[in-house]
């Protein structure tokens, strides 16, 4: 067997393995209900519950921000971000949170906001991590 053939075979093998491995990271968006049962780290798309309380009190803890998110199924859940409150948080149209359920709260590792931009008809993303 030719060496190049062998190498090609090995590389194809590796690439298949890598692609399968990589695609396992491409999760699907879940709901709070699933997050509560699985207790795993998940990604949830939802909207900020604007009528509920948003609490950020830097004088007490600058790394504690709590708010409520309504997921696509209409489920409302309290979310805690262990970081400063992101800018323009109230304006967000859509919110993507990554994290997991801990007790009654959803602990967000990072929050991705989609906000209307004042300057363009485009939208901007604001990311914050804890």
């Amino acid at each position, binding site marked *: 067997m030719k060496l190049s053939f062998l190498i090609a075979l090995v590389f194809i093998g590796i690439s298949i393995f890598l692609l399968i491995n990589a695609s396992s990271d*491409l999760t699907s968006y879940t709901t709070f209900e699933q997050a509560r049962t699985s207790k795993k780290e998940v990604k949830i798309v939802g909207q900020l519950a604007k009528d509920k309380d948003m609490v950020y009190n830097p004088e007490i803890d600058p790394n504690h921000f709590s708010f409520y998110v309504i997921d696509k199924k209409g489920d409302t859940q309290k979310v805690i971000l262990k970081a400063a409150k992101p800018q323009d948080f109230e304006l967000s149209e859509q919110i993507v949170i990554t994290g997991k359920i801990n007790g009654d709260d959803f602990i967000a590792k990072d929050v991705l906001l989609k906000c209307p931009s004042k300057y363009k008809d485009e939208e901007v993303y604001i990311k914050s991590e804890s």
Partner: protein
Amino acid sequence: MEPIQYVNEHLWVHYCGHAFLILAFFSGIYTLVSGIVSVNKNEAENSEWLKAVKIGFLFHVVFIFLSIVLIFFMMDRHYYEYNYVWSHVSDELARKYILSAFWEGQEGSFLLWMFWNSVLGLFFWKSLSKVNVAIITIIIGVEIILCSMILGVHINGVKIGSSPFVLLRQVMDIPLFKNAEYTSLIKGNGLNPLLQNYWMIIHPPTLFLGFASTIIPFAYAVSALWIKEFKLWLVPSLKWSLFSASILGLGILMGAAWAYEALSFGGYWAWDPVENMSLVPWIILIAGIHSHLVAKSTEYGVRATILFYIFSFVLVVYSSFLTRSGILGESSAHAFTQMGLEWQLLFFGVVSFFVPLFLYIKSSKFILTPKQEEKIESREFWMFMGCLVLLFSAGLITFTTSLPVYNKILDFIGGLMNVDLKEYHRSAPVNVIDHHNRFQIWIGVFVSLLSGIALFLRYCGYSLSGVNKNFWRNIIITLLSALVVAIFVFQFLNKNHWSLFLLLFSGIWAFISSLVIAISILRKNPKIIASVMAHAGFGLLILGIIFSGINKRNFQPELFFQDVETDNIEGPKKNFLLIKGEPAKLEGYELLYTLDSMDNKVRRYHIQFSKGDSTDNAEKFVLNPEIQYDNKLTKVAASNPATKHYLSKDIFTIISQIPKTQMDATASAAAEDSIDFEQYNVSIGDTFYTRKSFGILKNIRNRIDKHEFETLNTDEQLELDFEFYNLDVKKSFLASPAIIFRENLVYRFPDNIDKLSMRIQIPDTIYSVLNFVPNKIEKKSIELKLNDSIQIGDLKFTLLNLNKNPKAKTGLLVDKDIAVAADLLVTKGGVQKTLSPIYVIRDNQSFSIPDISLLPGLSIYFDKIDPNSAVMTFSFFENYTDISKLKIPIEIAENAPRTDYIVMEVIEFPGINLVWLGSLFMVFGLMIGSYQRRMTNG
């Protein structure tokens, strides 16, 4: 309805601009057709078709340049009737940012791309050999597609391109455009404040030159397939590939530096889709350059080189599809589609991929390949391995970044089958950075190792062995020394994982092996400096990435008191609170937020860092992170970090939160509403009790000193000095609220005592309290000429000026009045004030509108003008009131939120300079390589 005849529009720009673009488009098509015919017919030089290419391309370039000049012209002149100008320019925008404004929009950036294509094309246009005609033809093909993006024509209701010369009233339907003189009413939107910095001036043109120049290797590769000449192109094209890779690399590096220095991402690389898609074409280009080097020196690698160069350009096109079509904007909301160019961009991608593919399938069988395989001990074998690894790297990054495309395709298929496939949509990895790093760490290891091995080997033909006599000696010595250094350095890492050790070791080896090559071969072959620099740079970059990435850490505040745990969640506390004037301890540093100041649209904070007690080795520096407000000063637009640079590390600071009242206008108003003020009436010197403290009004002053506010001599100003004492804190505090009455406006300057959550302000009603009825019996008369002064008691009057068009409070003057105001400077003690009583003649009657000053209490009338002697007569009353008996109204709130803090993050980036140094080495290595080959003309 009759069409409106608009005035003051500069319509010639619209017509000229459209004409230029259409002419550029059609001269492009003319050149393309001539070029194709010329190449296919295999015409000799100076044929008619060649002439057509020569003229056509020149015309195209001229029209592109003219369009660009025209856009700059209308931006510079602020022709806001144009949508592009209105969207990107404003009156306040500094002239230097016109460049940034030009390429902020998609249309401008397409033109920038075309500009570079044109400039690059001119190098080939100079002498039209057959290969050069083919290259010009390929460039013009791309130019035509790019030009169509900004053509802005409608054919059968289908919009082709979005023109920068479209009028605002053509894209917007608002009542304003019923006004024929609307141009005088509109103001530009201006440039996004985030983009108003020097990076926005230098980064886009560099990056776009990088993107645009990938067309040269691409065009060489495609022309090789087209004219079936597979070997000759390898010589002239190499300098262009190296040039392209160096400029694209520099552009990406600038983007990374911008992200690190000016934006709030807290790092130089975030695996953001836009970043990824600029990196991927570069990686493929680097792979192409390596196989190109092999192909030049041996019989191998021609096909691979052609494919790599084609892919690199196709990926540039794919990248612009992803970033410009709006497909990257989250799956559900279609955010970026307003340009309506998705299909055109898709067409661009399809053409740039399938045309070369077709040519490749047609012609590749003519490429000669040696029967024998590369030997394992040859340099080319290991270089190809490296190319494959780079291909993996690019493939994996593209695979993940393309996720929105898969969702889109699913929707498309779903649309065809009439089913909703939304539930099969995938989301980006939960942790994107970990996801990419997990794979790319191995790419780093393999590329480093392969670059080390390949450097020590030689190219060989059929017979020679690539192993030279010192090969094993060199390999073993460098490996061992790399191992020793790696073991030593590894201890300083905050995270110990064997894969990290491997990466560290391989990075060090890549660096050391480059050095050894440099020492041993450089004298014999100085040309190798380019490759040595680039490879050493790669090694350094790896080290920098490891150190700045793994050892990056947030400074944690030392707590003076038991921190109240609000929950049981672990993890680092990134942000901390810093109160103005209160020092905080942070990792050995003492931080002091001393002051903040507003300058234009930026609030600048002074944060003082000091370390060490003894004066000898004390370290002290000030960092100025900033908060940037939007163009209308209504809300925060961005937080700009500030960084202290050391050789071995950076200390990076960013403000993550400021008090609501400083954040935006609406939040400030809302915060103000939520405060409960209580009114007190106090006399000077009296002690009064609030809910939690007691206070004394110590002084009433009629000159305020608010350094952020420019006062006028005619202002009625009042400032009250209070001292408050709080029994709980057992401390006294000073506060000085102020108020200014200017014509019909009131400016209030409340003061805060943040420690007591106290806010003190003066209500408007103070005016009526102080403006008591004057004692008319004491009327005194004075006579003055212009510029004369007179002293009466402790009052001094100077007649400064006469004003024939005086302004008075509404309703006091009517149109037919003849009125003259006198500006009188009144001085009492150290206080100066300008008063302007008015002399009025109405229906043969004369009277005066007096001017009244609260402090010093004075009413002054302008009674008479003697036209012969130019003497003016005034009369005034002094208001003798015992100020100590007045009850001054004040408002005090004791639940006001603090306004004197910031929440900030301090991050240490060790080894960040290795990242910059390594990347610059790579960029310069590529540049030098390109420069060395400048004489091999194509």
